[in-house]
């Protein structure tokens, strides 16, 4: 096991936007974290990368173990040693992800200088090589450029190269393509998946695009309103989802055989932290909700590496 997140809760101020999160990631695995906006995907990423204090949050319960070490128990200095070296991070918006005043190359060089101890010229050679692998044309020139001279897609390639530079075991990507043009989204996401597979790096990819999950991921964790709805193997998840929320997400994927105007959505919206309902948090939007769902929080039922939290699991009905 590379990464084990166990009953992780996160507090910001008096609120607890993340509660009892549990899933794990094996070496070289691609795990998708899905859910609508506000379900706690980004907070999970910030917790794993140790960046919660920057937004005023903290881990209030549970553990995040990385190769057996509980990251939540480390001092800030010890924790920092993992960042960039063992865990790479790719942010949502490449337009604002880079220091506007520093040359692109220097921003990538620093990772291999800091973590691999390379001298400046060797670090630059490595940066240029990484840029080449990320299919950046004229990598030497790009290394000398400033962020404002690059397109969004190009910047995200740079950010991915930056995440790869420290030879990490895990890359956390927070919706790596949502801020990009649709035309480059597919390119970038496949490039990322390819590089990660080639290097046997585990990838935790946050997305709300179920078709990307179906194409690229080995496993999926579905989050809803700060709790785990379901964690499963990707094939099993699409074939036999246990949680009605997962079912609803899958039903939202447009298919070529659909009739015109048949695009569906999930009625309602994810509640804000202050308005979390009692019992199962999905019950106000759930077609299968009963009185039990309104009062009792469903336990996270575990079966091997899989788990789900639903009183009326779809799998129970299907046998």
């Amino acid at each position, binding site marked *: 096991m590379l990464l084990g997140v166990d009953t992780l809760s996160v507090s910001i101020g008096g609120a607890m936007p993340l509660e009892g999160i549990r899933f794990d990631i094996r070496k070289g695995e691609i795990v998708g974290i899905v859910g609508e906006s506000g379900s706690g995907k980004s907070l999970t990423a910030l917790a794993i*990368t*140790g*960046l919660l204090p*920057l937004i005023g949050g903290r881990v209030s319960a549970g553990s995040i173990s990385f190769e057996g070490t509980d990251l939540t128990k480390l001092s800030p200095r010890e924790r*920092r*040693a*993992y*960042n*960039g*070296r063992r*865990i*790479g*991070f790719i*942010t949502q*918006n490449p337009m*604002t*992800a*880079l*220091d*506007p*005043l*520093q040359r692109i190359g220097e921003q990538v060089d*620093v*990772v291999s200088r*800091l*973590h691999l101890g390379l001298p400046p010229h060797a670090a630059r050679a490595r940066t240029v090589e990484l840029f080449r692998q990320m299919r950046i044309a004229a990598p030497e020139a790009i290394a000398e450029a*400033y962020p*404002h*001279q690059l397109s969004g897609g190009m910047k995200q390639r740079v*950010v991915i190269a*930056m995440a790869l530079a*420290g030879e990490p075991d895990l890359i956390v990507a927070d919706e790596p393509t949502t801020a990009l043009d649709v035309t480059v989204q597919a390119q970038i996401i496949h490039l990322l998946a390819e590089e990660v597979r080639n290097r046997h790096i585990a990838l935790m990819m946050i997305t709300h695009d179920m078709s990307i999950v179906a194409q690229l991921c080995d496993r999926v964790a579905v989050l809803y309103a700060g709790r785990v709805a379901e964690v499963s193997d990707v094939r099993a998840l699409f074939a036999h989802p246990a949680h009605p929320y997962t079912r609803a997400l899958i039903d939202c994927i447009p298919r070529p055989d659909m009739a015109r105007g048949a695009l569906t959505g999930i009625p309602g919206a994810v509640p804000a932290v202050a308005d979390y309902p009692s019992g199962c948090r999905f019950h106000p939007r759930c077609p299968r909700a009963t009185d039990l769902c309104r009062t009792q929080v469903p336990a996270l039922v575990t079966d091997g590496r899989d788990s789900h939290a639903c009183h009326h699991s779809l799998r129970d009905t299907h046998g």
Partner: protein
Amino acid sequence: MFTYVLKRLLTLVPVFLAVSFVIFMILHLIPGNPVDNLLRVGSSPDMRAEIEAKYGLDRPLLVQYVIWLFHVLQGDLGTAIVARRPVATIIGGALPYSLQLGGAALLFSSTLGILLGIVAAWFRDRWPDQAIMGGVLLGSTLPSFWMGLLFILFFAVWLGWFPVSGVRGWQSLVLPVLTIGFGGTALVTRVTRVAMVDAGGRDFVLLLHAKGLSPLRIALGHVLRVALLPVVTILSLRIGWILGGAVTVEVVFARPGLGTTLIKALSQHDYPVVQACLLMLSVAVMLGTLIGDVLQALLDPRMRHGHR
């Protein structure tokens, strides 16, 4: 970079012409006349006309302006009507003191202000921040003439460390610089702190932390550079201001300077001197913004490439 500076310089030409026109016109349109100061009570109108003709004051205003501008551009600031000396000599006598005081005060307030701003932002909302921001509140609200008197009483009269007034030696510069620098430091500290906190909350800082850089390195190597952009703007605006803004301090410490020269000339309606002083101050402001723009361009590649 060279073309950038050249372009900025060229845009200053129309500004200079406009400013010089306004300065000239305002002075000549306000009531009062320098000739009044030269005539004895009961002098005949003929004598008035004679003096007016001597200084060209009898010609149409626009003609006077063109002649004046023409001379100024050749470096001839004219002769003071009341003081009866070349204006260049009067300005030349005062300017070094103003430059000395203004330069030292600017250096003092920018260095200390940026330093305090960084410390305050680093310890945001903890006691060092609160202490510094308390000092900033004092610095920006206490009037400088009162501060100056307080400094004189404490450091010059009681402790006897520095002279009460005058311009002899570097010691005489300390108290005036402190007096002016106090308010300046407060301003720079506040701007630096806000800019550091703002820049520290940007997206790219998250990624710097994710790369595993130390917080100190992120603050000083990355956040500070971004935060300096607004600080440089504020400082460049103060370059011009500090030359003429020291009037009260010059009076309190009995120092010669552009400020006192201007006040004296104004009270005597000595047009050539007032015009020259105001022109100096406007040129200083213009140069200040130019220096600010150049510094911005040096700090920010987006400015150099015209992306902002």
